[in-house]
C-alpha cells in the first residue's frame, strides 16, 4: 500500500471508548469517533453533553479515565512526553472567548508560540504578526493594541491568527461564532474555511450554531449524554433522518431530546 492510500485509510484522529467522569457525573461514556485528515469535523451537542471535554482530552488538558486517542495512528496517551510536546507543536486552538493574554499586546499574542519556541526573534515577530493578521482581515496597526481594546469579532480574529501562526496541521475551534452577530459569525466562518484550506489542515469544531456547522464542516457528529449518537455529512444537518439530530438542528422543543429542568 502506498503512503497516500495509507494516509487516506488511517483517520487523522481516532477516538475509541473515551470515558471521563467528574465525581459521580459521567461526562464521556465511551466516545468512538474518526476524524478524516484534511477535512472539517463538527461536533454538535447540547450544553453539558461533553463536547469541550472531548477536545480537552485530545489536547491533553484533561486526562481521560479510559479509552484511546490516536493521532496519525499513534496512541497519544501512551506517548513519551517529548513526542507529545512535538505533537502539540502541530496543533492550533481557537478558544470560545479568545483566551488572549491580557498582559501582552496583540502582536505578541499572535506570535506567542513562535517566540516561546525561539523559532523567530522579537524583532521579526512584529512583521510576522502583521502578515498573519492580514490573513484574518486585520490591519497591522491592530498588533500594537492590547486585547482589552478589541471588539468581540476582532478578538476572535486575533485568536484565529494566533491559532494558525505556527502553521498547525490540526486546528480546534471551540464555539467559533458564539457571542457574535450573524454577519460577523459568517465572516469568521469564512476565514476559518479559508485558512484551513490554505494550510491543508484537519479542523475539529464544536458548536451549537447550525448555520456555522454547515459552513465550516465536511462531516458532523452528535454527542448526547457522553456518547456519539450520529455521524454523517454536515450538509445534511436538519434532514438526517435521525430524530434526535434533526430536533437539535432545527431547534425544536418537542422530540426525543428532553430538557432536564432543575427545580
Amino acid at each position, binding site marked *: 500500500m502506498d503512503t497516500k492510500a495509507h494516509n487516506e485509510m488511517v483517520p487523522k484522529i481516532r477516538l475509541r471508548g473515551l470515558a471521563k467522569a467528574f465525581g459521580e457525573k459521567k461526562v464521556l461514556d465511551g466516545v468512538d469517533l474518526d476524524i478524516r485528515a484534511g477535512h472539517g469535523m463538527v461536533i454538535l451537542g447540547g450544553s453539558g453533553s461533553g463536547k469541550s471535554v472531548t477536545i480537552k482530552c485530545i489536547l491533553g488538558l484533561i486526562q481521560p479515565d479510559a479509552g484511546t486517542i490516536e493521532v496519525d495512528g499513534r496512541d497519544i496517551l501512551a506517548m513519551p512526553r517529548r513526542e507529545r*510536546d512535538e505533537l502539540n507543536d502541530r496543533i492550533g*486552538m481557537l478558544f470560545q472567548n479568545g*483566551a*488572549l*493574554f*491580557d498582559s501582552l499586546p496583540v502582536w505578541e499574542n499572535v506570535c506567542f*508560540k513562535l517566540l*516561546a*519556541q525561539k523559532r523567530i526573534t522579537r524583532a521579526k515577530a512584529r512583521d510576522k504578526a502583521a502578515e498573519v493578521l492580514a490573513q484574518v482581515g486585520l490591519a497591522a496597526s491592530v498588533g500594537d493594541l492590547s486585547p482589552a481594546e478589541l471588539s468581540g469579532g476582532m478578538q476572535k480574529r486575533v485568536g484565529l491568527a494566533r491559532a494558525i501562526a505556527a502553521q498547525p496541521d490540526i486546528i480546534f475551534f471551540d464555539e467559533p461564532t458564539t457571542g457574535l452577530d450573524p454577519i460577523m459569525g459568517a465572516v469568521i466562518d469564512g476565514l476559518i474555511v479559508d485558512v484551513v484550506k490554505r494550510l491543508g489542515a484537519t479542523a475539529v469544531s464544536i458548536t451549537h450554531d447550525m448555520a456555522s456547522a454547515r459552513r465550516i464542516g465536511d462531516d458532523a457528529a452528535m454527542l448526547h449524554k457522553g456518547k456519539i449518537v450520529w455521524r454523517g455529512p454536515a450538509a445534511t444537518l436538519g434532514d438526517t433522518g435521525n430524530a434526535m439530530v434533526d430536533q437539535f438542528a432545527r431547534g425544536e422543543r418537542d422530540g426525543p431530546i428532553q430538557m432536564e429542568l432543575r427545580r
Partner: protein
Amino acid sequence: MDLVLNPVAAVGRGVLSACRTVGAVALFALQGLSHLVRPPFYGRLFLRHLVEIAYFSLPVVALTAIFTGMVLALQSYTGFARFNAEGAVANVVVLSITRELGPVIAALMVAGRIGAAFAAEIGTMRVTDQIDALTTLSTNPMKYLVTPRLLAGVVALPFLVVVADVLGVMGGWLIGTTKLGFASLSYLKATMDFLQTMDVVSGLVKASVFGFVITLMGCWCGYNSKGGAQGVGAATTAAVVSSSILILALDYVLTEMFFAR
C-alpha cells in the same frame, strides 16, 4: 452516639482536608522550583515581576517602615522611662526593626499588594482559559507563570527589607532626636554599636522565605481558582490571608532557629 461521633468525624475530615492541601501546596512548590534548572528560562518575565515587587512596593514599604520606627521609639521611650532605661531606645529600635519588624512589616505589605495581584491575575487567566491556551501554545504554565514569580519574590523581599531596616531606624532616630531629646550622633552611635551582622542576616533570610511564601500562595490560590469573578475574588482573599498567617507563623519558627539558646 451520633452526637458524639459527628463532631469527631467533622474534625477528622477537616484534618484530612488540611493535610491534602498542605501536600498539594508542597508539590506545587516543588514543581515550580524544579523549572528553575530546566530551560527555557523566562528572564524577561523574572525582571518584570522583580520590578513589580521590588520597585512598585517601595512607597508602601517605606512609609510603613518609617512610621513603625517612629512609634517604636516613642513607645519604648515611655516604657523604659519607668525603669530609668531611656538610653536603650536606640538599641531596642534597631534590634526590633532588623530582626522582626522590618521583615514582617515589609512582608505583610507585599502580601497585600503582590499576593493579591498574583492570585487575581493567575485566577483570571484560569477562569478565562488563558492557562489552557498556554498549554496549547507549547508553553508549560508552571514554568511561565509560577517559576519567575517565585524567584522574583525570593530576590525582591531582601531588597525591600534592607530599605525597611534603614528607614525604620531613621524613623526612630527622627523621633529620638526631635522629640525625645537624644543627640543625633550618640543615637546613631548607640544604634551601630549594638547592631550585629547576625541581626541583619537573620532578617534578610526571613525576607527571602517570606517572599517565597507570598508568591507561592498567590500563585497557588490563583492557579486553583474556580468559577468566575467570585472564584477569583475568593482566591485573592485566600492568598492574602494564608500568606499573612504563614508569615507570622514562619517568623516564629525562624526566630527560634536563629536566636534560641
